[in-house]
Every structure is written in C-alpha cells, then in structure tokens.
C-alpha cells in the first residue's frame, strides 16, 4: 500500500514539475489573496498583523480547493481514471499518494505565504516549533479531506461550484484550530497552541482513516 502511495505521489509531483500549474497559477493566486486582504482591511499595519494568522489560513484553504481540483483533473483526461483503476494499485495507496502529493504542494505554498505574511503584514515569526508542527498537522488534514471530496465531485459538470460548498464547511475546524495555534505561537504563548494541534491531529487521523476506507468504492464509479 505504501509503495503504491509513493508511486502515485511521485507521478502527480512529476506531472506538476512538468506542467507547473500549481507553481504558475495556484501560488500567485494565494499571494493575490494576501494582497486583496490588505486592500479590504486597509493597509493599517496593526490590524493586518493581528489578523495575519487567520488571513494566512484562509488563503491556504482557498488554495486547497484549487489544488485538490487540479489533482483530480489530472485523472480526468485520456481515460486516466480507468487506467488508474485497472492498474492493480491498492485504492488506499492511491488515496494516500494523491493526498501526499497535494500535501507537498500545500507545504511549499505555505512557505511562500509565510514569507508573504512576514513581508506584507509585518508579522514576526516566533515559536518556530509550534508553527511547523501546526502546519504539518493542518496540511495532513487539509490534503486528506480535500482529496476525499475531490473524488466525490470528480466527473460532475457542476464540480467547480459544488466542491467549495462541500469542502469549506468541513474544513472549518482546521481553519479555527490552525489559526489559534498560529496566534498562540506568534503571541509567544505556545502552551494553548498544543491543544489546537491535538485537534488538528484528530481531524487528520479521522480523514486519513475514512479516506483510506472509502476511496476504493468512490474510485470505482468516478
């Protein structure tokens, strides 16, 4: 199963390396969101700095929708989905692989956004360990839940509108948890932050487990 996951993740990342859709479109979009927030909230530095954690994660959430949509779009042409299904790979491995590829892209995006937040909003990074662990836990949850919902919406004509409606409410706990943990880290009070990391961990475990179980039957008919 893990070997299959590595294969699928490698395939997705290789495609990304050649097509550069995420690099050339999703990443600029995420940075654009940061700039738009600055317009909306006035360039008053105090407000932006205080809201930095929340704005950072909102940008990540929207990018997640795009990333998982792209991840499914890879399979939609040339009968790739049928090929994947007939390849004999373990469906659980396919799920983990696609989620892992999305997670890698999201982590790269978060590094970029992190730099953007520091530069544009003037938020100073602190509590590095909590920041990194939070980002890892939240990304695992985002990628797992996102990949699961993306295959649910795959092949529908209304997928562009349906996927955000389905996915964003489900991701609400991640937004809350990751934002609070980041705030705790930035305020130099990491004690409370770890409670949130635990919630993010539970979320990630639930969705990885559910996705591993359910992906097979969803892939069958996608």
């Amino acid at each position: 199963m893990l070997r299959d996951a590595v294969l699928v993740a490698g395939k997705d990342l290789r495609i990304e390396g050649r097509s550069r859709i995420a690099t050339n479109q999703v990443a600029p979009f995420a940075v654009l969101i940061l700039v738009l927030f600055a317009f909306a909230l006035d360039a008053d530095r105090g407000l932006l700095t205080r809201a930095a954690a929340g704005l950072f994660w909102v940008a990540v959430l929207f990018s997640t929708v795009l990333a998982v949509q792209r991840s499914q779009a890879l399979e939609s042409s040339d009968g790739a989905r049928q090929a994947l299904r007939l390849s004999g790979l373990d469906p659980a491995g396919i799920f983990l692989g696609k989620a892992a590829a999305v997670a890698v892209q999201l982590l790269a995006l978060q590094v970029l956004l992190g730099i953007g937040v520091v530069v544009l909003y003037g938020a100073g990074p602190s509590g590095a360990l909590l920041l990194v662990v939070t980002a890892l836990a939240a990304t695992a949850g985002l990628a797992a839940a996102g990949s699961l919902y993306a295959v649910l919406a795959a092949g529908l004509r209304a997928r562009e509108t349906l996927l955000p409606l389905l996915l964003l409410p489900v991701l609400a706990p991640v937004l809350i948890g990751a934002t609070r943990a980041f705030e705790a880290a930035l305020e130099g009070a990491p004690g409370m932050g770890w409670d949130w990391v635990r919630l993010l961990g539970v979320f990630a475990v639930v969705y990885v487990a559910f996705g591993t179980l359910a992906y097979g039957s969803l892939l069958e008919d996608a």
Partner: protein
Amino acid sequence: MTTLRDETTRTGARPVPASTGTAATRVLGGVTLLALGVLLYLAFVASPAAGPSQGFDAVRFMYVHVPSAWLAYLSFAVCALCSALYLWRRTRSRFWDLLAGASAEVGTLFIALTLVTGSIWGRITWGVYWTWDARLTTTAVLFVMFLGYLAVRRVALDVEVRSRRAAVVGIIAFLNVPIVHNSVQWWRTLHQEPTVLRTDLSPQIEGLMLYTLLFGVLTFTLLYAWLVVHRFRVAWLEDRLEAAGLGRAIAERRAEAGLDEDPAVEGVPAPAGPAPDPSGPAGRTTPEVTAP
C-alpha cells in the same frame, strides 16, 4: 412497459385516488395536527411566562425552537445511519438511499427553522440576532454541510453513483459535527468569557414548562415522521419515474430508428416524459442518456 402504465392509469388508479397518503398516514397526520393545536394552547395559554431574568414571554419560543433543533439532529442521525446501511453491500437498496435523502431534506428544513427562531429569540433576550456561541455556530455549519449534501443528491449523474457519493457525504457531514462543536467551543472559551447572556439559553424549567417542552418534542417527532413518510414516497415515485423514463427513452429511440411500430409510444400522456419537472430534486435524468 408503456402499455402497462396506460392500462393501470385507466383501470387500476381510478378506485384509489392517486396520492402518497394511506389510512395510516392520515391517522398520523390527524394526530399531529391535534398535537400541534394542543402545543399552541400549552405554549401560549397554559404555561406561565418565565421570570424577569428570562425575558418574560420570550421563553415561549423554547417550545418550537428546542424541538426543531432536536429533530434536526435526529434527522441527520437517521440520514447518516441510512447512508451507512446503503453503503454496506449486504443491506444496499434504493430504500435506504431514498430514506436518507428524505430525512436530510426534512432535517434541513428543521435546522433552518431552528436558526430563524433562535435568532428572533436571541434578539429579544440577548439584544442581537446572532452570537458566535458554540451551539449556534455548530448548527450553522451543519446547515451548510447538509445544503451541500442535498446539492449532491440533485447532481445529474448515474443514480447508483450519485447515491453512493451522497451516502459518503452524509456520513462525513454527520461525523464532522462533534469535531466542529469541539473546535468552536474551544475557540470561544479560550478567547473570552462565556457571554453573560449564555446562561439564558437554559432557563430554569419546571412543572408545566417542562411538560410543554416535552410535549413539543413529541409533537415535532410526529410531524417529522409524517413529513419523512410522505417525502420518502415522493422520492420513491421520482425514482420509479426516472427508471421508467430511461426505458421509455430507449424505446423511443428504437421507434425512431424504425425498428418496430409501437402504438403505445404515442398514447403516453405528455407529462410522463423523461424530464417531468425541472425543479424537482431527482426529476432530471442523465442528459447523456436522453440525448439522441
């Protein structure tokens, strides 16, 4: 198939008026209406207004607000259970899928009513329509998630595929409730004292007020049962019609190709066409199939 339907509408359907009602549901409906009347009496006449700290007559909102919230959560539990039964191969049948959809739709109505009555009640006792209280926020998120679930059920897709996906969405949406609730609760409690007004949400209830509340829950449960039974039957009819429409479309294509002369095809009344109601949730058939 088409001749069969013609005969039944001409002969079989006449003695029994076409409807989704039966003797049992009519009794249930009557009892529900009666109970609603009694509930209104209890809520407005018999039960006392609460003390000044509870905002006097505002407490009368409790008798619809709490039951509809309770029923909303119950109907989503039913939806998740039916979805699980549908996904499990040994119990897979259209019955569970359609029941899950019916329950979710009724539950979404109840949750909307919960939010509306809660807002008005909040306006009276708290002075605002909305607070970011844990229970309110969880309910709102649940509402949006089930709007998404109903949207999946309405998607134009092969019936089996759509049902399977809807079942997964229904289960996830329900499993997500405790996570959302916990996160929202921590979010509020970690950042500020519980609102002073929060205590008003569970006023001291005793005697007749408690009885009225329980009676409200009972009444709404009856109402839920009646609504779900009828909604399920409508969904069942739509499902049959969709299946029949598919068969008919194939027969029509065959007739167009001149394979056989089937006089019954012309005899079918127009409303029974493959796309009977564009506004109906499952009234659409997959366009790929109906297109020539």
